[in-house]
């Protein structure tokens, strides 16, 4: 088991290294560079060259890449070229803000998705089931920016219950802080919950029809025990896979949600960096997101093994 985890972690490091080369290559072929951005709309060639020289952008690409990579290896993520401040704290602070949003949303998606799925499966083809279906289809088929703006218009503008965006500060009190998270989290949750609830529903229905559940019922076990102790554990296996994939979705959706709710997270920072070709900022942001995604997959695989005794990593005997 420990060996397996170590191997996987080494794999993640390799993936990140490849990612860093890819991102660097993409920024090299994008039209324009950060010197063009800094020099502005109508700068002459000489100005652009002077800025490129000051920033060391006139060096060959592999030298530039090596300078940057060597910095990372020594724990220095460099300086944002446009903002002229260290990348490390900039990205980290934005990442923590996003992580807060994403993890609350993820827990909501997991909990409500599974609960709704299970409820729908038990009440199959009855009103609750149909209600859950409609709810989740509407959620998945309408894009998140629509719900975000509906949320702002209804809850911020007309009802005036919640702030229209921004990030709160704990020093203003818990509710003032938490209230800023409600709309973004609900938007993220609503658009992702369908995946989880649909999948849980079908796999639960399948499990409830299986022979061992029939045996359990025949044995006279109460229905609640059958569902919680026997059916759910097996029915959740595919859900775990989907939840891991949803981490990727969540990270994509969060870019849009942060923009609409003016939330200062990693998605908006990355968008800002890409628009301005700020390479150190782009690299650090993307590597961080890639790392999160890789780790989420690793955790999903480990959970899978935990729930399904048929899979046990790192054991030779079968």
């Amino acid at each position, binding site marked *: 088991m420990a060996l397996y985890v170590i191997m996987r972690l080494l794999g993640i490091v390799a993936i990140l290294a490849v990612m860093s080369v890819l991102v660097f290559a993409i920024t090299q072929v994008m039209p324009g560079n950060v010197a063009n951005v800094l020099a502005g709309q109508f700068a002459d060639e000489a100005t652009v060259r002077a800025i490129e020289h000051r920033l060391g952008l006139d060096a060959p690409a592999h030298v530039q890449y090596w300078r940057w990579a060597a910095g990372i290896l020594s724990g220095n993520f460099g300086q944002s070229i446009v903002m002229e401040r260290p990348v490390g704290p900039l990205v980290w602070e934005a990442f923590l803000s996003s992580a807060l949003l994403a993890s609350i949303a993820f827990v909501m998606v997991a909990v409500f998705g599974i609960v709704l799925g299970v409820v729908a499966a038990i009440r199959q083809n009855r009103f609750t089931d149909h209600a859950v279906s409609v709810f989740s289809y509407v959620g998945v088929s309408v894009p998140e920016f629509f719900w*975000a703006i509906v949320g702002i218009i209804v809850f*911020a503008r007309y009802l005036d219950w919640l702030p229209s965006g921004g990030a709160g500060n704990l020093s203003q009190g818990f509710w003032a802080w938490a209230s800023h998270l409600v709309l973004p989290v609900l938007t993220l949750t609503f658009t992702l919950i369908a995946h989880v609830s649909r999948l849980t529903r079908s796999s639960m229905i399948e499990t409830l029809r299986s022979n061992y559940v029939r045996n359990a019922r025949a044995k006279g076990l109460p229905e609640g025990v059958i569902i919680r102790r026997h059916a759910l554990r097996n029915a959740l296996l595919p859900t775990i896979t989907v939840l891991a994939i949803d981490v990727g979705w969540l990270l994509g959706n969060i870019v849009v949600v942060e*923009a609409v709710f003016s939330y200062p997270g990693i998605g908006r920072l990355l968008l800002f960096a890409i628009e301005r070709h700020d390479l150190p900022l782009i690299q650090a942001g993307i590597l961080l997101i890639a790392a999160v995604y890789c780790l989420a997959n690793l955790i999903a695989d480990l959970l899978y093994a935990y729930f399904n005794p048929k899979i046990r990593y790192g054991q030779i005997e079968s």
Partner: protein
Amino acid sequence: MRKHFYGALGAAALGFAALTAPAMAQGTLRVAIPSNLNTLDAAKTKLGEEYIMNFLIFSGLVEVDGKGGVKPDLAESWTKSEDLKTWTFKLRPGVKFHNGRELEAEDVKATIARVMDKATGSTARVNFDIVESIETPDKGTVVFKLKIPYSGFAELFGDRQVRILPRDKFDTIASEPIGTGPFKFKAFRPGDRVELVKNPDYYIKGEPKLDAVTFRIMPESAAQVAALETGELDLVWSLPLETLDQFKKNPDVVIDSTPTSTWDGLIMNSAHKPFDDPRVRKAIAMALDKPALVEVALYGQGTPTHTMIPPSHPYYNKDIPIAAPDIEGAKKLLAEAGYPNGFEATLYLPNGRPTRERLGIAAKELLAPLGIKIELQRVPWDKFVKEIEGKAAFYTDGFYSRPTIDTSIYPWFHSAGSWNTQLWNYKNPAIDRVLDDARAAKTEDERAALYKKFQALAEEVPAGAIPYVQNHVNAFRKNVKGFSSSPMMWLDLRETTVQ
């Protein structure tokens, strides 16, 4: 299980209802701006949002007065030599930077030398190409020697990038700006907010009146509208024109609109056929219905004009009428130029610049009667700057207000102008002469006459079509007093209060 779930939902809903906005601090103005800032280093700024900070945190040698002239700011007075080549500025004594150090002539010299350095990449650099040397005979005096006579030199110091910075803090100015302006920098959380607090040592006693200003970075206009309506914000800077209607019926919100010299244009590149023929350019300019373009592109928030000199400017040439579209005349000119049945052209539009996109769409319709078949193509901003501007034959573009008349015109219309060759490659010896003469004009009347002549010449042989100048629109709540929108599109908050 089901019961618990619904119960939890209900509790959550009640919880949301109980939330209220945090209590507001007295004397703090809360402003929404749409974009994140790149830098707080005045010399390197390029965005409207950054210019706001420039004027709140820093000061210049002079200040634009909103009537086409300038008044003293850090320079108490200035004199020019007879030949307009030596300019001497006397600094206001006792002005302190936010860190307590006194402003000295060396700071002015170092600031301008830095702007003139190509590696700084300041867009104001081209304006200071005319400077030969900078001398500081004493702590309170700066002398500029120029290569050419230049009547508008003092006005250059009202520009946005030419804020005076402390010479010992250049390397940290981008993230921790220190200036002499009415507000001190407190914090910048990228993507979230900029916080400024009152500078108690500001050289004008009793100003600023506010204790603090908080800028919230809010890209989504629906969020801005909601926050202003509910009082979460006090002011929305540069309101998106398409949201104007939503406030018309709200008695708590004031819409403040002011004319500027920010312009959009239909750029016809003289380096390409058929636009090398001035008759073709003239025909296109004649066919455009300028008031209609103001309605379509700006929702009525603008004014038809001849060139970038706005009708609100004292140098505007009132003798030239804003002509109604003349389709027949335009057709005749096109026929003379050899295009009796019009031609086909691709018009490039910069993506994400809504007024210029709408201008292009309207132009397509307005030029159809001439037989000109336009294919519209939207281009991402990056690509637009690198591959379209100055290179494509036909596109829409636009420029922000400049503080001085010479820097508003010369770069675009003079054949040696820095932006001309990267925009429309326009060459008109008569205009070159007028613009050069205006630079060396000794009196105000002489200068005004020359710029009026420039407008007549540009109307006769157009470089492109400049149909309008835009209004700058701010929305604020009734409790904001002592504020008016500036034609420069920055925020003067020195007299502003929140009640």
